[in-house]
């Protein structure tokens, strides 16, 4: 009879020796994890801005765009990677494409909702004072949408950090390597290390993005929302 993970945990406990022996690898995996996440969120954000501009300019495209990104979002991550491997192989590209696609729905929705949430009277006042469409978008609507946009970036980042633990399966590193190896060796400490690091990274980025949000929207700082 093979021991269950719980039994293994009870028997083995946490192997601190292993933990201290792998600090270097943890740092390496952190760099991988952050890079995978960062590239996905940054590229996803750029694509989402482009899609949102299309959706804002041509309203009729908004529904198809959110429908499409929504469908992508519902595909299980393992399934998506498995589906793409025959085309793009066990590569960084495969990992990033998957991760990027998952950010799109959240980012597009928040960007468009942020712009739509700008009070109509503010937009009208701006137009009445002689703002042209482009100035209006970049100097009034986008700044005012920032809190909602940053909220979208926070969710997308935290989600991606979780998803990156899966990309180890296609050989792209990150904390997923600890979890995957830990499971195959039934070594609880390693699984825990991978999980705790991933959660900590998510919490850290969430915190940092809250700070960024306050910094780009200083007017919200002074009013209790």
């Amino acid at each position, binding site marked *: 009879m093979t021991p269950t993970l719980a039994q293994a945990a009870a028997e083995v406990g946490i192997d601190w020796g292993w933990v201290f022996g792998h600090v270097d690898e943890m740092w390496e995996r952190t760099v991988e994890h952050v890079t995978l996440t960062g590239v996905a969120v940054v590229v996803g954000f750029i694509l989402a801005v482009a899609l949102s501009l299309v959706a804002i300019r041509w309203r009729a495209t908004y529904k198809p765009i959110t429908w499409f990104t929504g469908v992508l979002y519902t595909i299980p991550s393992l399934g998506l990677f498995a589906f793409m491997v025959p085309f793009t192989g066990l590569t960084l590209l495969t990992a990033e494409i998957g991760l990027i696609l998952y950010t799109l729905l959240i980012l597009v929705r928040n960007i468009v909702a942020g712009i739509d949430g700008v009070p109509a*009277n*503010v937009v*009208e*006042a701006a137009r*009445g*004072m*002689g*703002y042209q469409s482009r100035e209006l978008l970049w100097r*009034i609507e986008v700044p005012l949408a920032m809190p909602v946009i940053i909220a979208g970036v926070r969710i997308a980042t935290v989600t991606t950090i979780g998803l990156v633990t899966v990309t180890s399966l296609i050989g792209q590193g990150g904390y997923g390597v600890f979890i995957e190896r830990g499971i195959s060796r039934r070594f609880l400490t390693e699984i825990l290390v991978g999980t705790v690091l991933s959660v900590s990274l998510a919490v850290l980025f969430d915190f940092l993005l809250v700070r960024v949000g306050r910094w780009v929207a200083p*007017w919200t700082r002074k009013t209790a929302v």
Partner: protein
Amino acid sequence: MISLVDVTKVFPGMDHPAVDGLSLDIAAGEFVVLVGPSGCGKTTTLKMINRIIEPSSGEIWVDGVAATETPAFELRRGIGYVIQQIGLFPHRTIAENIGTVPELLGWDRPRIAERIEDLVVRVGLDPAMLGRYPSELSGGQQQRVGVARALAADPPVLLLDEPFGAVDPIVRFQLQEEFLRLQEELSKTVVFVTHDIDEALRMGDRIAILNVGGILEQFDTPENILSGPASEFVADFIGGERGLKRLGLRTVGSVDLTRGPVVDVRSDVETARDAMAQYGTEWVALLDGDRLLGWVWGEDLDGQLTDLEPHSFWVELDPESTLRKALNAVVMTRSRVAVVVEDGIYRGMLGLETIAGEVDQ
């Protein structure tokens, strides 16, 4: 300065027009008020002037140029605009809000800063507020910022849509007074929207009264509208107390004042009695040179006038006061007259008959 020629606006999907065949001629420096019940097309009319809404038919001329000849954004930069809900930019400080149009016009920073400082004082705001965000201001303060922002690039034309709508009556009155004072200095061409007829009567050189469906009922001076409402609708709209409202438009200085039963305090009792007899009063007012000392009852006249202790008049008016205020004074004082004093010098008095006579005219 602004001409609307047979302007009609039918919104898509509406079976009757929001504005129907409206023609208005507004002279440079004139203060025109658009007034009427909710939904009568006031805002629509205003927005057609700066092309936020394009008319379905008709022409609009601003400063001798057809509005459609100028690119909309350029036209708008030359027209100060306060929208119905103020619409300050929440993400910009008060200073940045006020500096919006100068910035769009590419003024340099020192010039914008100077302009902002000047305006803040003019509209009665504390310069300490310049660094704050709009959400940190009271409703009345926000409205002042809205007006300052509209004035910033010194546009010849101002469009104001219920600029004092969101404040309590006391602050509203104060803002009205201040704006009138400002307008006296600036002489802008103003189109001012309100649904408050009293505000319209107080502020406007001329008033355009609109009916639902955007139909112009009357376009005339407050005085003429009150004395000769063009239709049942107008009469209803201006409401009761028309006489009182007219009195609110006239100043005491515009009326021929009577001298009244007034004698110098150094005269003798006989002179005082003569004055009372002449005016048929039971009291007489005492003057020391040009200064009004007060009044005394005829039955108290005895010996020297200088020995008497005159009662002071409860209300003294200056020539700028309205006849409405004078009427109030007449009703409130025992002597049944309003006395008019300018810079401490007695000018005369007016009684109920004089005031009533002004309403009749």
